[in-house]
Protein backbone atom coordinates (compact mmCIF):
# COMPACT_ATOMS: atom_id res chain seq x y z
CA UNK A 1 0.00 0.00 0.00
CA UNK A 2 1.04 3.58 -0.44
CA UNK A 3 3.04 5.25 2.24
CA UNK A 4 2.08 8.78 3.26
CA UNK A 5 4.58 10.86 5.18
CA UNK A 6 2.66 13.75 6.77
CA UNK A 7 5.82 15.41 8.07
CA UNK A 8 7.60 15.70 4.73
CA UNK A 9 4.37 15.76 2.69
CA UNK A 10 5.42 12.85 0.51
CA UNK A 11 3.30 9.99 -0.83
CA UNK A 12 5.20 6.93 -2.01
CA UNK A 13 3.30 4.85 -4.56
CA UNK A 14 4.41 1.39 -5.68
CA UNK A 15 3.54 0.29 -9.22
CA UNK A 16 4.64 -3.12 -10.49
CA UNK A 17 4.98 -4.18 -14.14
CA UNK A 18 4.02 -7.86 -14.26
CA UNK A 19 3.80 -10.36 -17.11
CA UNK A 20 5.33 -13.42 -18.74
CA UNK A 21 9.03 -13.77 -19.42
CA UNK A 22 10.46 -11.53 -22.15
CA UNK A 23 7.19 -9.65 -22.69
CA UNK A 24 8.89 -6.25 -22.40
CA UNK A 25 8.45 -5.16 -18.79
CA UNK A 26 12.05 -4.00 -18.43
CA UNK A 27 11.96 -2.40 -21.87
CA UNK A 28 8.98 -0.32 -20.71
CA UNK A 29 11.01 1.02 -17.79
CA UNK A 30 14.07 1.58 -19.94
CA UNK A 31 11.99 3.71 -22.30
CA UNK A 32 10.50 5.68 -19.39
CA UNK A 33 13.99 6.13 -17.97
CA UNK A 34 15.22 7.70 -21.21
CA UNK A 35 12.09 9.67 -22.06
CA UNK A 36 11.43 11.28 -18.69
CA UNK A 37 15.02 11.74 -17.54
CA UNK A 38 14.33 15.15 -16.02
CA UNK A 39 11.76 13.69 -13.61
CA UNK A 40 14.05 10.88 -12.49
CA UNK A 41 16.56 11.75 -9.81
CA UNK A 42 18.52 8.53 -9.84
CA UNK A 43 19.64 5.76 -12.13
CA UNK A 44 17.40 2.82 -12.88
CA UNK A 45 18.35 -0.21 -10.82
CA UNK A 46 18.33 -3.51 -12.73
CA UNK A 47 19.16 -6.90 -11.29
CA UNK A 48 19.75 -9.17 -14.27
CA UNK A 49 21.02 -12.64 -15.02
CA UNK A 50 23.98 -13.22 -17.27
CA UNK A 51 21.59 -13.60 -20.20
CA UNK A 52 20.05 -10.16 -19.56
CA UNK A 53 16.84 -11.52 -18.07
CA UNK A 54 15.44 -9.86 -14.98
CA UNK A 55 16.55 -11.89 -11.98
CA UNK A 56 14.95 -10.02 -9.12
CA UNK A 57 13.49 -6.67 -10.10
CA UNK A 58 14.09 -3.43 -11.92
CA UNK A 59 13.40 -0.27 -9.97
CA UNK A 60 12.87 3.25 -11.25
CA UNK A 61 11.83 6.06 -8.88
CA UNK A 62 9.90 8.79 -10.65
CA UNK A 63 8.79 12.19 -9.33
CA UNK A 64 5.34 13.22 -10.44
CA UNK A 65 4.99 16.67 -8.94
CA UNK A 66 2.43 17.66 -6.34
CA UNK A 67 -1.17 16.87 -5.58
CA UNK A 68 -2.80 18.93 -2.83
CA UNK A 69 0.59 19.97 -1.52
CA UNK A 70 1.99 16.44 -1.35
CA UNK A 71 4.93 15.30 -3.48
CA UNK A 72 4.00 12.12 -5.31
CA UNK A 73 6.90 9.70 -5.64
CA UNK A 74 6.14 6.85 -8.00
CA UNK A 75 8.23 3.72 -7.51
CA UNK A 76 8.16 1.61 -10.67
CA UNK A 77 9.18 -2.03 -10.35
CA UNK A 78 9.27 -4.94 -12.74
CA UNK A 79 9.30 -8.59 -11.80
CA UNK A 80 11.12 -11.52 -13.40
CA UNK A 81 8.73 -13.23 -15.78
CA UNK A 82 10.12 -16.74 -15.97
CA UNK A 83 8.00 -19.44 -14.36
CA UNK A 84 10.70 -20.48 -11.90
CA UNK A 85 10.89 -17.02 -10.33
CA UNK A 86 7.39 -16.95 -8.88
CA UNK A 87 8.65 -16.74 -5.29
CA UNK A 88 10.50 -13.58 -6.28
CA UNK A 89 7.48 -12.11 -8.05
CA UNK A 90 5.48 -12.60 -4.89
CA UNK A 91 8.07 -10.74 -2.81
CA UNK A 92 8.16 -7.79 -5.19
CA UNK A 93 4.35 -7.53 -5.15
CA UNK A 94 4.29 -6.85 -1.40
CA UNK A 95 2.65 -3.51 -0.77
CA UNK A 96 1.78 -2.91 -4.42
CA UNK A 97 -0.60 -0.04 -5.17
CA UNK A 98 -1.10 -0.55 -8.90
CA UNK A 99 -0.18 -3.11 -11.55
CA UNK A 100 0.60 -2.89 -15.23
CA UNK A 101 0.09 -6.30 -16.79
CA UNK A 102 2.32 -6.51 -19.86
CA UNK A 103 1.14 -9.13 -22.33
CA UNK A 104 3.21 -10.30 -25.29
CA UNK A 105 1.18 -9.94 -28.49
CA UNK A 106 3.12 -12.65 -30.32
CA UNK A 107 0.82 -15.50 -31.33
CA UNK A 108 3.08 -18.11 -29.74
CA UNK A 109 2.85 -16.36 -26.34
CA UNK A 110 -0.92 -16.65 -25.99
CA UNK A 111 -1.00 -19.37 -23.33
CA UNK A 112 1.84 -17.77 -21.37
CA UNK A 113 -0.07 -14.49 -21.18
CA UNK A 114 -3.13 -16.23 -19.78
CA UNK A 115 -1.11 -18.29 -17.31
CA UNK A 116 0.79 -15.23 -16.09
CA UNK A 117 -2.40 -13.23 -15.54
CA UNK A 118 -3.91 -16.12 -13.57
CA UNK A 119 -0.79 -16.29 -11.45
CA UNK A 120 -0.94 -12.54 -10.81
CA UNK A 121 -4.46 -13.13 -9.48
CA UNK A 122 -3.16 -15.86 -7.14
CA UNK A 123 -0.15 -13.85 -6.00
CA UNK A 124 -2.30 -10.82 -5.17
CA UNK A 125 -4.66 -13.04 -3.19
CA UNK A 126 -1.71 -14.10 -1.05
CA UNK A 127 -1.62 -10.45 0.13
CA UNK A 128 -5.42 -10.29 0.43
CA UNK A 129 -5.59 -8.05 -2.64
CA UNK A 130 -8.08 -8.64 -5.42
CA UNK A 131 -7.17 -8.39 -9.09
CA UNK A 132 -10.71 -7.07 -9.59
CA UNK A 133 -10.17 -4.16 -7.19
CA UNK A 134 -6.53 -3.12 -7.44
CA UNK A 135 -5.74 -0.41 -10.02
CA UNK A 136 -4.74 -2.36 -13.13
CA UNK A 137 -3.85 -1.49 -16.71
CA UNK A 138 -3.16 -4.07 -19.40
CA UNK A 139 -0.64 -3.45 -22.16
CA UNK A 140 -0.52 -5.56 -25.33
CA UNK A 141 3.15 -5.16 -26.16
CA UNK A 142 5.15 -5.84 -29.34
CA UNK A 143 2.40 -4.89 -31.80
CA UNK A 144 5.18 -3.44 -33.99
CA UNK A 145 6.28 -6.99 -34.84
CA UNK A 146 3.35 -7.20 -37.26
CA UNK A 147 5.36 -4.91 -39.54
CA UNK A 148 8.26 -7.35 -39.40
CA UNK A 149 6.27 -10.38 -40.49
CA UNK A 150 5.98 -11.94 -37.04
CA UNK A 151 2.54 -13.49 -36.40
CA UNK A 152 0.78 -11.54 -33.66
CA UNK A 153 -2.61 -11.89 -32.04
CA UNK A 154 -5.25 -9.34 -33.00
CA UNK A 155 -5.98 -6.91 -30.17
CA UNK A 156 -9.57 -8.19 -30.08
CA UNK A 157 -8.33 -11.70 -29.27
CA UNK A 158 -5.93 -10.45 -26.61
CA UNK A 159 -8.71 -8.40 -25.08
CA UNK A 160 -11.03 -11.39 -25.05
CA UNK A 161 -8.38 -13.62 -23.46
CA UNK A 162 -7.20 -11.18 -20.81
CA UNK A 163 -9.67 -8.36 -20.28
CA UNK A 164 -13.16 -9.76 -20.86
CA UNK A 165 -13.83 -10.17 -17.14
CA UNK A 166 -11.51 -7.52 -15.73
CA UNK A 167 -12.63 -4.73 -18.06
CA UNK A 168 -9.72 -2.47 -17.17
CA UNK A 169 -8.04 0.16 -19.38
CA UNK A 170 -5.84 -1.45 -21.99
CA UNK A 171 -3.38 -0.27 -24.64
CA UNK A 172 -1.66 -1.85 -27.57
CA UNK A 173 1.96 -0.81 -27.40
CA UNK A 174 5.50 -1.20 -28.53
CA UNK A 175 7.93 -0.72 -25.66
CA UNK A 176 10.92 -0.92 -27.99
CA UNK A 177 9.66 2.05 -30.02
CA UNK A 178 7.90 3.81 -27.17
CA UNK A 179 4.44 3.60 -28.72
CA UNK A 180 1.87 3.95 -25.90
CA UNK A 181 4.45 3.36 -23.16
CA UNK A 182 3.81 6.82 -21.71
CA UNK A 183 0.04 6.45 -22.14
CA UNK A 184 0.12 3.19 -20.19
CA UNK A 185 2.14 4.79 -17.41
CA UNK A 186 -0.07 7.87 -17.20
CA UNK A 187 -3.18 5.72 -16.95
CA UNK A 188 -1.84 3.49 -14.17
CA UNK A 189 -0.56 6.50 -12.24
CA UNK A 190 -3.87 8.34 -12.45
CA UNK A 191 -5.87 5.20 -11.54
CA UNK A 192 -3.60 4.49 -8.60
CA UNK A 193 -3.58 8.04 -7.25
CA UNK A 194 -7.39 8.21 -7.51
CA UNK A 195 -7.61 4.89 -5.67
CA UNK A 196 -5.36 6.15 -2.88
CA UNK A 197 -7.39 9.34 -2.55
CA UNK A 198 -10.58 7.29 -2.21
CA UNK A 199 -9.05 5.20 0.55
CA UNK A 200 -8.16 8.33 2.48
CA UNK A 201 -11.62 9.88 2.38
Amino acid at each position, binding site marked *: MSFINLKDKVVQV*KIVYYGPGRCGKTTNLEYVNRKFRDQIQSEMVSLKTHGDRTLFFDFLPFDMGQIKGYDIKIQLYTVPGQVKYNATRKLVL*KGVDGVVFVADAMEKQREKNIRSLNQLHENLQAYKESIFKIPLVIQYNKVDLKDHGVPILPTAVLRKDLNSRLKVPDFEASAITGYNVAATLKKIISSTVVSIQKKLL
Partner: protein
Amino acid sequence: MNYGIVSQEQLEQIDTILASKLIKLGVDCVIIIDMAGNIITAKDNGESKYDVYSFAALAAGNFATVDAMAKLVGEAEFSLLFHKGQESNIHFSKIDDELLLISMFGKDISLGFLRLNVVEAIEQIRKVWEGGNG
Protein backbone atom coordinates in the same frame (compact mmCIF):
# COMPACT_ATOMS: atom_id res chain seq x y z
CA MET B 1 -2.55 -0.84 13.02
CA ASN B 2 -2.28 1.52 10.08
CA TYR B 3 1.27 1.77 8.79
CA GLY B 4 0.24 3.76 5.77
CA ILE B 5 0.18 7.12 7.52
CA VAL B 6 2.73 8.39 10.02
CA SER B 7 2.21 11.61 11.92
CA GLN B 8 4.67 14.44 12.04
CA GLU B 9 5.00 14.05 15.79
CA GLN B 10 5.83 10.34 15.51
CA LEU B 11 8.45 10.96 12.84
CA GLU B 12 10.07 13.74 14.81
CA GLN B 13 10.33 11.46 17.84
CA ILE B 14 11.77 8.67 15.73
CA ASP B 15 14.27 11.04 14.11
CA THR B 16 15.35 12.17 17.56
CA ILE B 17 15.92 8.58 18.63
CA LEU B 18 17.93 7.81 15.50
CA ALA B 19 20.05 10.92 15.95
CA SER B 20 20.80 10.33 19.62
CA LYS B 21 21.29 6.57 19.44
CA LEU B 22 22.95 6.07 16.06
CA ILE B 23 24.06 9.21 14.25
CA LYS B 24 25.70 10.52 17.42
CA LEU B 25 27.56 7.20 17.64
CA GLY B 26 29.10 7.92 14.25
CA VAL B 27 26.75 5.99 11.99
CA ASP B 28 26.87 7.56 8.52
CA CYS B 29 23.28 6.99 7.53
CA VAL B 30 20.26 5.27 9.03
CA ILE B 31 17.03 4.47 7.21
CA ILE B 32 13.74 3.00 8.35
CA ILE B 33 11.71 1.35 5.62
CA ASP B 34 8.65 -0.82 5.39
CA MET B 35 8.84 -4.25 3.79
CA ALA B 36 7.42 -2.93 0.52
CA GLY B 37 10.46 -0.68 0.07
CA ASN B 38 8.89 2.62 1.17
CA ILE B 39 11.06 5.00 3.18
CA ILE B 40 9.63 5.89 6.57
CA THR B 41 12.52 8.16 7.46
CA ALA B 42 16.18 8.60 6.58
CA LYS B 43 18.79 10.40 8.60
CA ASP B 44 22.46 10.96 7.94
CA ASN B 45 25.47 12.73 9.38
CA GLY B 46 25.36 15.51 6.79
CA GLU B 47 28.13 13.97 4.71
CA SER B 48 26.47 10.94 3.14
CA LYS B 49 25.18 11.08 -0.42
CA TYR B 50 23.23 7.88 -0.77
CA ASP B 51 20.39 7.40 -3.25
CA VAL B 52 17.98 6.45 -0.51
CA TYR B 53 15.02 5.50 -2.70
CA SER B 54 16.90 2.91 -4.71
CA PHE B 55 18.65 1.77 -1.56
CA ALA B 56 15.28 1.21 0.16
CA ALA B 57 13.96 -0.88 -2.74
CA LEU B 58 17.08 -3.04 -2.82
CA ALA B 59 17.18 -3.38 0.97
CA ALA B 60 13.56 -4.53 1.13
CA GLY B 61 14.25 -7.07 -1.61
CA ASN B 62 17.45 -8.19 0.06
CA PHE B 63 15.84 -8.66 3.44
CA ALA B 64 12.77 -10.37 2.01
CA THR B 65 14.97 -12.83 0.15
CA VAL B 66 16.99 -13.69 3.24
CA ASP B 67 13.79 -14.02 5.25
CA ALA B 68 12.37 -16.41 2.65
CA MET B 69 15.57 -18.47 2.85
CA ALA B 70 15.25 -18.60 6.64
CA LYS B 71 11.77 -20.09 6.25
CA LEU B 72 13.10 -22.66 3.77
CA VAL B 73 15.62 -23.97 6.30
CA GLY B 74 13.04 -24.03 9.09
CA GLU B 75 13.94 -20.82 10.90
CA ALA B 76 11.46 -18.14 11.91
CA GLU B 77 13.99 -15.52 10.88
CA PHE B 78 17.69 -14.74 10.82
CA SER B 79 18.31 -12.12 13.47
CA LEU B 80 21.50 -10.75 11.96
CA LEU B 81 21.89 -9.51 8.41
CA PHE B 82 25.16 -7.72 7.93
CA HIS B 83 27.34 -6.75 4.97
CA LYS B 84 30.97 -5.87 5.58
CA GLY B 85 33.13 -3.90 3.15
CA GLN B 86 36.61 -2.43 3.29
CA GLU B 87 35.37 0.97 4.42
CA SER B 88 31.60 0.70 4.77
CA ASN B 89 29.24 -1.76 6.41
CA ILE B 90 25.50 -2.22 6.40
CA HIS B 91 23.44 -3.68 9.24
CA PHE B 92 19.78 -4.72 8.96
CA SER B 93 17.47 -5.23 11.89
CA LYS B 94 13.73 -5.85 12.06
CA ILE B 95 11.71 -3.42 14.13
CA ASP B 96 8.62 -5.57 13.73
CA ASP B 97 7.01 -7.63 10.97
CA GLU B 98 6.50 -4.53 8.85
CA LEU B 99 9.49 -2.29 9.51
CA LEU B 100 13.21 -2.54 8.96
CA LEU B 101 16.06 -0.45 10.37
CA ILE B 102 19.17 -0.17 8.20
CA SER B 103 22.42 1.32 9.48
CA MET B 104 25.38 2.25 7.31
CA PHE B 105 28.62 2.77 9.17
CA GLY B 106 32.38 2.87 8.76
CA LYS B 107 35.15 0.77 10.21
CA ASP B 108 35.55 2.96 13.30
CA ILE B 109 32.41 1.50 14.88
CA SER B 110 32.38 -2.08 16.11
CA LEU B 111 29.46 -4.25 15.08
CA GLY B 112 28.79 -5.30 18.66
CA PHE B 113 28.55 -1.75 19.91
CA LEU B 114 26.30 -0.82 17.00
CA ARG B 115 23.99 -3.74 17.71
CA LEU B 116 23.56 -2.71 21.33
CA ASN B 117 22.50 0.76 20.25
CA VAL B 118 20.27 -0.60 17.51
CA VAL B 119 18.43 -2.80 20.01
CA GLU B 120 17.85 0.16 22.31
CA ALA B 121 16.78 2.41 19.43
CA ILE B 122 14.31 -0.21 18.22
CA GLU B 123 12.81 -0.61 21.66
CA GLN B 124 12.21 3.14 21.82
CA ILE B 125 10.85 3.29 18.26
CA ARG B 126 8.35 0.54 19.02
CA LYS B 127 7.01 2.58 21.91
CA VAL B 128 6.60 5.62 19.67
CA TRP B 129 4.87 3.53 17.02
CA GLU B 130 2.51 1.86 19.46
CA GLY B 131 1.77 5.13 21.22
CA GLY B 132 0.77 6.80 17.98
CA ASN B 133 -1.95 4.24 17.39
CA GLY B 134 -3.14 3.92 21.00
